[in-house]
């Protein structure tokens, strides 16, 4: 295996890591604030992908431009999910919480199958095939755009959480619900905001990859599984941790595909999960 191939694998992994980070940030934001492990997070990605696909197919709207439509739509969807499905089970046992989100995932995935069929769909844009070549290593432009878009959105979200009053209120609820209530913050509203934002950023990750990734009903499963490994490796609830972990997972998956075979990328990702649980279950940013 020559150096160029390995460099190519590294590059592909790094570019994909941006997307994994964005999906994982959505997951970890919801977990951090609402304390619900959302097994339906992958379906937010899937919905972002289908929304982008249909906007392009029906009205010819550019996938990147349609983020301006899909993100608000998914935000509203997340708010509805929190209001009607998550709120009643906020203090319920783990069983209710986990299987509520599993049920939601099954519903959404199969709704996509029912309405859009199992067909694999692609979006062809003028820039879908653009590639930059650097010393024999191919840099596909849509992947680069997706990576930069994901970094931009993650950066904006971090700024929102650290600089604005609303963002600080959200983090306060994540840290301590009771104390934040004493400070006059309404946690119910922060929950709505967290699930809305979590759905919007994961949906945006879906929209960003549409120019180079197949759209199909069960596509979310891949992303939710990877996102789980990323958030555990990066410490549950930590956004910086998720970004660092996404880089590790993205590169490991890409190298796994290179060395073990295209169908074993996810197996390498699960190996990282096992290693994390054995050696540092609290994750990279964890205390113990």
């Amino acid at each position, binding site marked *: 295996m020559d150096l160029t191939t390995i460099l190519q694998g590294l590059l592909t992994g790094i570019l994909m890591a941006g997307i994994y980070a964005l999906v994982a940030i959505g997951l970890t934001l919801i977990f951090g604030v609402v304390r619900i492990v959302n097994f339906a997070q992958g379906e937010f990605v899937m919905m972002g992908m289908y929304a982008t696909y249909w906007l392009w197919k029906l009205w010819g709207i550019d996938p990147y431009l349609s983020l301006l439509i899909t993100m608000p739509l998914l935000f509203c969807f997340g708010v509805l999910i929190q209001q009607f*499905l998550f709120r009643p089970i906020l203090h319920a046992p783990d069983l209710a919480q*986990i*299987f509520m989100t599993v049920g939601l995932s099954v*519903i959404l995935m199969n709704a996509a*199958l029912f309405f859009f069929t199992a067909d694999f769909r692609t979006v062809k844009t003028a820039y879908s095939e653009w590639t930059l070549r650097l010393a024999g290593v191919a840099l596909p432009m849509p992947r680069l755009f997706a990576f930069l878009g994901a970094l931009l959105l993650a950066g904006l979200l971090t700024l929102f959480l650290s600089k604005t009053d609303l963002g600080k209120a959200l983090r306060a609820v994540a840290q301590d619900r009771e104390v934040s209530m004493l400070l006059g913050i309404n946690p119910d509203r922060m929950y709505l905001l967290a699930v809305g934002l979590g759905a919007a950023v994961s949906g945006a990750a879906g929209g960003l990859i549409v120019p180079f990734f197949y759209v199909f009903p069960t596509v979310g499963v891949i992303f939710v*599984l990877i996102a*789980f490994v990323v958030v555990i490796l990066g410490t549950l609830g930590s956004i910086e941790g998720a970004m660092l972990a996404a880089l590790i997972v993205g590169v490991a998956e890409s190298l796994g595909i290179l060395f073990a*075979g295209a169908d074993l990328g996810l*197996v390498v990702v699960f190996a990282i999960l096992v290693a994390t*649980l054995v050696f540092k279950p609290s994750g990279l940013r964890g205390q113990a």
Partner: protein
Amino acid sequence: MNRVLSPQGYVPAVILLVLVVLPHLMPNPFYVHILVMMAIFVVLGQAWNLIGGYGGQLSLGHAAFFGTGAYVSTLLVNAHGISPWLTMWLGGIVALFLSLPVGIICFRLQGPYFAIATIGLAEALRLLVLHFREITNGAQGLTVPFKGNAPWLLQFDSKFPYYYIALVMAVATVLITRRMERSRLGHYLVAIGQNQDAAEALGIDSSRAKAKALALSAFITGVAGVFYAQYTYVIHPDGVFGLGLSVQIALVAIVGGVGTILGPAIGAVIMECFIQSTQIIFAGQYPGLELMVYGGLLVAVILWRPRGVFPWFARLYGWIVDHLPSPGAAQA
């Protein structure tokens, strides 16, 4: 004698008798097939219940143990002609050994780790089976060659023997659950479920107790996987290792009522009726619609019936027992 003659004694016997003669009352192979599937899901739901209900550790990957049993057995049966009556135990034991590292790694931790790790395990096994196609035949799956009526090979030309074997397995699993509930391990698990820290303070090794329950659960699930492979003659990685199966197993226990001896059995009967009727109603014409309905059912049960249908059933059963004659008491 009084115990046998009281309703508490004879009602279970009557139920068991009904279960034994039931296929003869409706000998149509399609109905017997439904009964066999019900019995298999009684076993699976009950096995999930041991760790998910009593142990409070929610597995989303029980298909890992099911598929392991199915593949280990079918490979051995096909390659070496070993009797499935033997590979049934082997399949269960391999599934048990597979569960040990999962338990050791996850039960030290509190949080969603076990649910996520079990999904990962099942998915990794599915991908590995797809990858090593020289051994596993990849996505095409494995078939058990049909040898006609060969009881030694666990093959019959009628569905009745399968039903009775599945019924024995289902009743055995219910009895194992009852025994476990009343054992030291069962009491440990209930104590851990109520307050893990308090249970630990009393000297209970919680990870060990959970790992034991998981091992038992995995063993039973593996055995069921072997039986399923023999019954259907064909297994596919997407079917026996799929997330859909794992969710269905959990759904049986949740709809019935977790942490109860009979809840998963009732759940299996309800879910199988539900699945068969949706298949008849939608006739496979609308892909996705059936599973959408299951997902909806799961959400509805969580929102409005988090303890499953078992409480209703228990009340009905109590009412029946109260209103039946008790010849034993009359004699006394």
